[in-house]
């Protein structure tokens, strides 16, 4: 009688210890978020979320990693995640950027995806720190109704959760949502909810366990145009004779509610506020200063509806497509410009040259679905390598251009789902011996010399048949 009881006791003990270990392998729960404030900006078609987290280390060991969780539907549209921490006292606060990397974790509930924020100084037990996290979503506003006429206003759905999804216990949290206008058709109420003008407040909610989720749906009016560049190919050609030529090929589409019915030009021009309120009329491109030879053309030819304003710090190119873009309408065009070489090409400390240029679309407030940047290095360049501040795909190609014998090396960099926040600088390093620049004039000189030698040979050779 004793042995079965002992066997069950041992089994029970083993089972209990296994359960204990399984619980331990889940994400660490020794961090606690004492206060979380989230501000969601829905004024443009890029959803910007500013999250202020006050994280407290309630465990016994110091940690320097904080996890951020995103539901699987949102993570596909996530364009950028940035984390900053304030340093210093009152008047001298500086924001220090922190590394944020996507992480894979085993056994996650509901297929959530995680990002880890690496703190500069580890957070010891009992201490708390305030983090500012900024992340942006693209294609997250769903137009409803999906098709609208010319004089109708554009209404969109925004789906999110009133409670912030987090692997940690949150003591107090509030969410503020800002809409572009006061016209909100409907919104989910998760008490306490308040709405004042263009701002909605969800919260404050107290003491919610990790991974708590409360879906909300907001149906509101957003008449901002939704410019989406489906594909952008940027070619940057470096010439050591003093010029940088940039050629950009755009495929632009209006990503909002699709247009149905007729387009009446009379209505559109006579009543601009009522008709085509969400149409795309013009775009602004911010270019570097001292730009020259700017052109804006498409397959038909030059498009003259553009303005270039130059400044000492920047140049602004305002372009209007040939026709206003309504939902679902596309436009393709090419923008090209030249820049002085000394603003962008530098010599690095280890005798290599590098190009320092902006990565990303110069158009303001546009989402780029697929960007390809091609940097064409001059003939005779060796060992090309690119340094980009975010994960990209790279490969090399060859291009044959003016006076080329062996071909020019092209560094091709590709990235998907970009927002204007990706307009930071990237560098392309390569080695080049200055003596190779003489190859081009000497090639031309030898061509002329060949012609003169042919003349001399013709005059010296006796071609007469009779002596």
């Amino acid at each position, binding site marked *: 009688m004793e042995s079965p009881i002992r066997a069950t006791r041992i089994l029970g003990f083993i089972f209990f210890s296994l359960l204990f270990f399984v619980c331990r392998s889940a994400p660490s729960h020794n961090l606690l978020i004492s206060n979380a404030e989230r501000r969601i900006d829905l004024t443009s078609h890029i959803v910007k979320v500013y999250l202020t987290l006050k994280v407290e280390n309630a465990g016994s060991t110091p940690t320097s990693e904080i996890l951020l969780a995103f539901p699987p539907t949102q993570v596909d549209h996530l364009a950028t995640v940035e984390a900053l921490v304030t340093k210093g006292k009152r008047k001298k606060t500086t924001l220090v950027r922190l590394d944020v990397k996507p992480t894979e974790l085993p056994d996650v509930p509901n297929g959530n995806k995680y990002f880890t924020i690496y703190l500069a100084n580890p957070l010891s037990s009992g201490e708390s720190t305030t983090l500012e996290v900024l992340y942006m979503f693209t294609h997250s506003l769903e137009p409803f109704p999906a098709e609208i006429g010319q004089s109708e206003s554009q209404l969109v759905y925004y789906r999110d959760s009133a409670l912030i999804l987090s692997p940690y216990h949150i003591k107090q949290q509030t969410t503020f949502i800002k809409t572009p206008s006061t016209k909100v058709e409907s919104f989910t109420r998760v008490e306490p909810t308040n709405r004042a003008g263009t701002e909605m407040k969800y919260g404050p909610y107290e003491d919610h366990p990790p991974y708590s989720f409360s879906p909300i749906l907001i149906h509101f009016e957003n008449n901002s145009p939704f410019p989406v560049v489906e594909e952008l190919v940027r070619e940057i050609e470096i010439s050591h004779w*003093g010029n940088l*030529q940039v050629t950009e090929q755009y495929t632009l589409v209006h990503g909002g509610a699709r247009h149905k019915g007729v387009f009446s030009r009379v209505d559109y021009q006579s009543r601009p506020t009522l008709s085509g309120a969400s149409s795309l009329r013009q775009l602004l491109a911010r270019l570097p200063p001292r730009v020259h030879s700017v052109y804006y053309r498409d397959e038909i030819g030059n498009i003259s509806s553009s303005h270039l304003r130059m400044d000492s710090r920047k140049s602004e190119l305002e372009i209007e497509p040939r026709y206003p873009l309504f939902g679902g309408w596309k436009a393709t065009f090419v923008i090209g410009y030249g820049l002085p070489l*000394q*603003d962008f090409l530098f010599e690095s400390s280890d005798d290599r040259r590098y190009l320092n240029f902006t990565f990303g679309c110069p158009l303001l407030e546009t989402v780029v679905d697929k960007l390809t940047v091609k940097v064409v290095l001059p003939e005779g360049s060796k060992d090309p390598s690119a340094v980009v501040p975010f994960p990209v795909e790279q490969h090399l190609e060859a291009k044959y251009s003016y006076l080329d014998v062996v071909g020019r090396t092209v560094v091709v960099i590709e990235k998907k789902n970009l927002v204007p926040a990706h307009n930071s600088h990237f560098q392309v390093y390569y080695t080049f011996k200055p003596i190779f620049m003489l190859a081009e004039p000497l090639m*031309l000189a030898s*061509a002329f010399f060949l012609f003169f030698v042919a003349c*001399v040979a013709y005059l010296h050779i006796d071609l007469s048949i009779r002596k």
Partner: protein
Amino acid sequence: MASAAKAISSPVPNEWYPTLAVVMLSVGLVVAASFFIYEATCTKRNRCIVKELITSGVASLFLGFGSLFLLLSAGVYV
């Protein structure tokens, strides 16, 4: 990094390109003209191949550089 890095620019200042193109092409054409005049006036016996090659070499050098600067001043940055 960028503040201390040295900017790289062309070995010849960009403003000189049109002037250099005109000067070099005119010198090159003058030398080429002297080459053709020599060929036309000299008789077969008095021809000196060394002189011909030197004249054509100098002419081709000036014409080569001149046409390069012509291309650069026109905006074709080769």
